[in-house]
Structures are given as C-alpha cells and as structure tokens.
C-alpha cells in the first residue's frame, strides 16, 4: 500500500512523457531564453551574462544518442544565433552539431554510467570544447583575439543553469524510439 503510493508520487507527468514532448518542451525553453537574450540585459546597471541556450539542448539531447529531429532543431537554432549575433552563417550550427555529436559519443562510451563524475565531467568538457570553438571562430572571423572573459561568463552561466535544469533536456530515449526498443 505504502509502496504503491510512493510509485504514484514518482510517476510525474514529466516521467511519463515520451521523447517527442520532451524535445518540444526543451526547444520551447531554448527559444524563449534565446528571444529574451535579444533584449537589453541590465539589472541595476549591471550587465547580465546570458547563456547559450542551444548548448543545453545539444548536451542534453545528445545523451539519448543521435537522432534526426534534434539535429534539425540545433541547425535552426544555430542559424538564428548566427543572424542575431552577426556571426558567419553556419558557425553556431556547426558548434551545436559538434557538441551534440560529442555528447552522443560520450553517452555511448559511458553507457549505463550515470554516476556523478560522468554527469559533471561530461557537460563540463563539452562546454569547454564549445567555448574554445566559439572563441576560435570569433577570433578568426574578426582578425583579432576576442576578449575571453565575457564569453567565459556566458559559458559559466550556461553551465550553472544546465546543472539545475538538465532534466528538461533529458529525452529519456531517442525520439521516435519505442520504450525498450531500439
């Protein structure tokens, strides 16, 4: 009796939802954060560091393995980021896809290892890779070494929020895949 009540408590709406609703929910979060990021971001005269929201999707969705729908979403988000930030078209799309691929690779290599070390080190490594890629692309395309500190604060914020909100970008299984199937 007690255990069934506990089970009911554990079976939340999120835990019962499949990968497609989770993907849509995560994409909506990314879109909302991205749109808010276009507005002036100051609080009491202090400039707020805004996260690269698409990277949450790239890291989180990649953990469920490779799939076509997240890739398309990441390309769309990447192109929007390129246009908004005046970067060469394809820059953020490439970075999002690379992080997504690496995330899937890490998940594949550490299959079943859901321990704290993998959960922390994996996203940290991916964020460092993304940081270096964005910094490198920005430096190459603008012919000078761009300032790394503001970019670092953005990435710190990305990682900090992801550490709390990673469940929102956990698809559970690959989109289109049946439960327990391949």
């Amino acid at each position, binding site marked *: 009796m007690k255990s069934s009540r506990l089970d009911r408590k554990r079976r939340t709406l999120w835990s019962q939802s499949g990968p497609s609703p989770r993907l849509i929910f995560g994409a909506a979060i990314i879109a909302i954060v991205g749109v808010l990021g276009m507005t002036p*971001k100051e609080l009491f005269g202090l400039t707020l560091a805004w996260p690269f929201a698409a990277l949450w999707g790239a890291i989180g969705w990649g953990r469920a393995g490779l799939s076509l729908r997240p890739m398309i979403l990441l390309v769309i988000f990447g192109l929007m980021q390129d246009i908004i930030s005046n*970067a060469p078209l394809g820059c953020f799309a490439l970075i999002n896809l690379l992080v997504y691929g690496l995330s899937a690779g890490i998940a594949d290599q550490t299959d079943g290892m859901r321990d704290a070390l993998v959960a922390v080190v994996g996203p940290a490594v991916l964020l460092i890779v993304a940081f270096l890629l964005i910094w490198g692309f920005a430096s190459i395309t603008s012919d000078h070494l761009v300032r790394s500190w503001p970019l670092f604060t953005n990435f710190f914020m990305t990682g900090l929020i992801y550490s709390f909100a990673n469940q929102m970008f956990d698809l559970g299984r690959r989109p289109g895949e049946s439960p327990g199937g*391949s």
Partner: protein
Amino acid sequence: MARSGRSSQKSGARRVTLGILIFGALALIVAQSAPQISNFFLPARTTVSDRIGAPADTSLWAQLTGQADREQRIRELENEVRDLARYKAAAISMAERMEAYENILNLMGEPPERGVTARITTVVDGPFAQTVLANAGSLQGVVPGAVAMNEGGLVGRVIQLGDRSSRILLISNYQSQLPVLGEVSGVRAILQGKDRDRGVLRDLPEAADFIEGERILSSGEGGAFPRGLVVGTVTKQGADWIVKLAMRDHASGYVRMIAPPEIVEPLPEPEITEPVSPAPASSTSQGAQ
C-alpha cells in the same frame, strides 16, 4: 539478430547525417570567406533582422478596435515630444551664443539636422560583433551609413539597413575605428573599442597629450561621422588613454539616426587638348599646291 542489424544500420545512417550536417555547416562558413557569397546571404539576414527588430504584424483584434492606430499615434507623439524636449534644452542654452557668433562671423545659420528616432529592440554583445538593432529602416528615412546617437552621445553607425530595421555597429566594437579629438587640448587620435563601456586611443601624436578628464569629440576626419559629437571622457590608465563612452551613461533604449556627412567630390579638371601640329609631309604638299 536481424533486429540488431537494422539497429546498427539506423545508427550508421544517423552518424552519416550528423557528419553531412557538420560538413555542410563548415562548407557554408568557408564559402562565406568569398565576399560574393557572403553578400548573397545579406538580403536573408536583413529580412530576418526586419522580422526580429520591427514586427509589422499587429493582431486582428487591435486592428478592429482601432487600438493599433492609437498605439501607433502614441508612439509618434512620444517620439515627437522626446525630440522637442531635446531641441528645447539645446535651443535655450545655445541660441544666445549662436546668435552672437553668427553676428560676429556674419554667417547664415544652418538648418537643424533631420533624423529618425528609433527604439533599440535587440542588443548583441556577443564575441562576434557588438551591434544593436533599431526598429526603423529605409521606409522611415534611415540612410545607409547613418550615424546613431543617444542622449549621451555617439553610439555608432548603421552597417545593415532593412526596410524597417537598422543594425548599428557600436563604437565600442573592437573593429570600430573612430577619428576623435580632445575638446580642450585639440589633440587628435583614433578611438578603438576596448570593451563594452570603454575605448582606447591609438595613433597618438608624439608631441602633444590629452588632458585628463576632458571630453572627447568626433573629429569628422574620414567623413564617416560629423565633427563635434560627444564620444566620452578620457582618463590615463598606465600608458594608455582610455575613453569612458558617454553613450553608456544615458542608455534610454532609443537612438537617433542622422544622415552621414556628405562630402562633395571635387569637379574633375577640364581636359586641356593640345593643338595638333600639322605633319611636315602634308605641309610641304600644301605648300606645293
């Protein structure tokens, strides 16, 4: 067995898709190193900026009830009041002095600079470029290369112009180079963006120096910016002269865009044609005739 085979086939296909997408994105980036291809994407960028910066669509309900028209009229009046308030303040402080100067110099007064006031809808402070997007474009009378100012001073210039939006490259951007001069010292230099709030002065003259705390104005050299626009105040930090940008002190979320100064090209010199001397052979034949 067959099921696991299909699974590995699917997995392989996904990897190939990811590889193709990554390769495609990389090819797109590399291709844009050619200005022709980069310019090809410019209309698409401008169209998206138009959509982001100034969505033209209003809801059907707002149109039916006339709310959209009322809001539009309120915005116009607000802009007008803002303009008038600025002109009033400027006029009170300057009219008397101006009249005296004009009398001394026997000059005709110049008409006030016409411009377009727009709201900043998007701020991009990323690693690639420091730009802002304003919700006025060519339809509102903004011209390519227009100079943007706010209440504090110079903000930047329009680098991308859409129908209803303008992308302004800020003077704080690293690649922004602005010829400036000290208001008191008159020393000239080039202001280069350093970070969000500051710029650094380059190409300093060896003989003269700025005065700590003096205002820095645009010098108008190069013709991209008019002369005399307030840029900021200068302080010495180590060996560098650092300018604290005035545009950050009065960021109300609006910019005013004025046409860049027009430099009239000098008229080409008339070509002087030398009289053609007759050939000796023909002259002898003429003489014989």
